[in-house]
């Protein structure tokens, strides 16, 4: 992706800046210049104003991705979700800091700021929003942690795939 193409969206991708129709009050993310909800779209053209999302949300649906999008190879398996914000918009984003088996519909999440992908080893680094659980989903560590022979944090029972 060209530098300019990502850069021009950074205010939205870094800070969840959306837009709001002052005609009907509907909030959009990403921002729109016309309100699809207003019967006469033209009336909304000059009436869309900036509207900040809080970053709060709830998982509507999720998937654990094993065959990644380009640039996400190091992150597999990763959780991708539809996150419903209290302001209205639904966002597609990764849920991080969670065991894949612990994600569920209804999980409360909050936006966090992470690296999305890199343009190779020498290119620019793209940052943006992801989500992490509001409540910690794993218990506390033992005072002295035992060695972990297998990457248990990343694995989960196969049978859970269809749950």
């Amino acid at each position, binding site marked *: 992706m060209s530098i300019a193409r990502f850069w021009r969206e950074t205010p939205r991708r870094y800070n969840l800046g959306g837009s709001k129709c002052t005609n009907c009050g509907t909030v959009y993310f990403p921002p729109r210049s016309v309100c699809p909800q207003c019967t006469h779209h033209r009336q909304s053209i000059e009436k869309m104003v900036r509207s900040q999302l809080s970053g709060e949300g709830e998982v509507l649906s999720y998937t654990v991705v094993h065959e990644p999008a380009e640039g996400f190879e190091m*992150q597999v398996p990763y959780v991708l979700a539809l996150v419903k914000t209290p302001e209205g918009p639904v966002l597609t984003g990764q849920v991080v800091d969670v065991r894949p088996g612990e994600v569920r519909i209804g999980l409360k999440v909050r936006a966090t*700021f992470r690296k999305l992908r890199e343009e190779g080893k020498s290119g620019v680094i793209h*940052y943006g929003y992801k989500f992490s659980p509001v409540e910690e989903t794993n218990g506390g560590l033992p005072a002295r942690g035992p060695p972990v022979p297998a990457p248990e944090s990343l694995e989960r029972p196969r049978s859970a795939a269809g749950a």
Partner: protein
Amino acid sequence: MQAGIVSYGAYVPRYRITPAEIGRVWGIDGESMGQALNVQRKSVPSPDEDTITISTESLRTALLRGAIDPQQIGALYVGSESHPYAVKPTATVVAQAVGATPNLTAADFEFACKAGTAAIQTCLGLVGAEMIRYGVAIGTDTSQGAPGDALEYSASAGGAAFVIGRERVICRVHRTVSYTTDTPDFWRREGQKYPSHGGRFTGEPAYFRHVTECARALMEAVGSTPKDYAHVVFHQPNGKFPQRVGKTLGFSEAQMRYGLVTPYIGNTYSGAALIGLANVLDHAGPGERILMVGYGSGAGSDAFDLETTEEIARFDRSFGRPVQYYLDHGVELSYAVYAKFRGKIHMGGE
């Protein structure tokens, strides 16, 4: 000095690895190594975390806690030795991500592990001179030791952000002094992935000399003695060095209780002393005096004589997570997953 700390936030990534697990891979008794270093586990960043994201997380927490309008930030400095770019500032991304752009000055600091305390001093100057309303000083690292090197048992990731201002100060800065020499105890040359160090040379002539001299200089300057302080925070490359330096200077274990965090999260380099200070502030009530001494290889120390104010009783810590949370929580990784997360595995096409 009018300027002081008006808010702060810390962030430590979620993953941990133990010295025993690292030692298992290199055929070393990692558990004994961990005991010798007083490091029980160290934090590991996710593949999608770096100094920019950790700095942003900690600063977002600080801004929420202090109800600070990011547009009122006049300067933002990020101290780190693991800036994601060799050229292109960490600070600009962080400033954009918290909504502080465009009317501020920003820069990256590098002074091994004390770049964060150096950033605090700079902000104190700017704020004290009333050139800016708020200055932000962040110390963050995602440092790596070379595989198998002694540093690998401690080098970890984390950071803390401090907002310096004149209004609603929760912790006054009475005085800060520094002690700086040319001492090549630890370095990383341009283009090198892992740092090099002088082994035992990092001890006496480097860490211990600078930290003790700087601490003594500060106490002499303000006429204090160790018993005047409720808390002391030292730079903590491992859990042992700060204990030893504290004992040398005449501080008790109780004074170091909250300031010593490395045993539970490892050495966060530029973040180390600052996360220790954040933990102290998490627990402190009004009127508690704090001595903080940072250290950066190369070498130098910055010492601070601090005191909490009545304002800290009203300070809203409900945003973000307290440091204690990060000391108690985490998900342990195997060395294999750690190696994947830290980019130690060569991927196809590289």
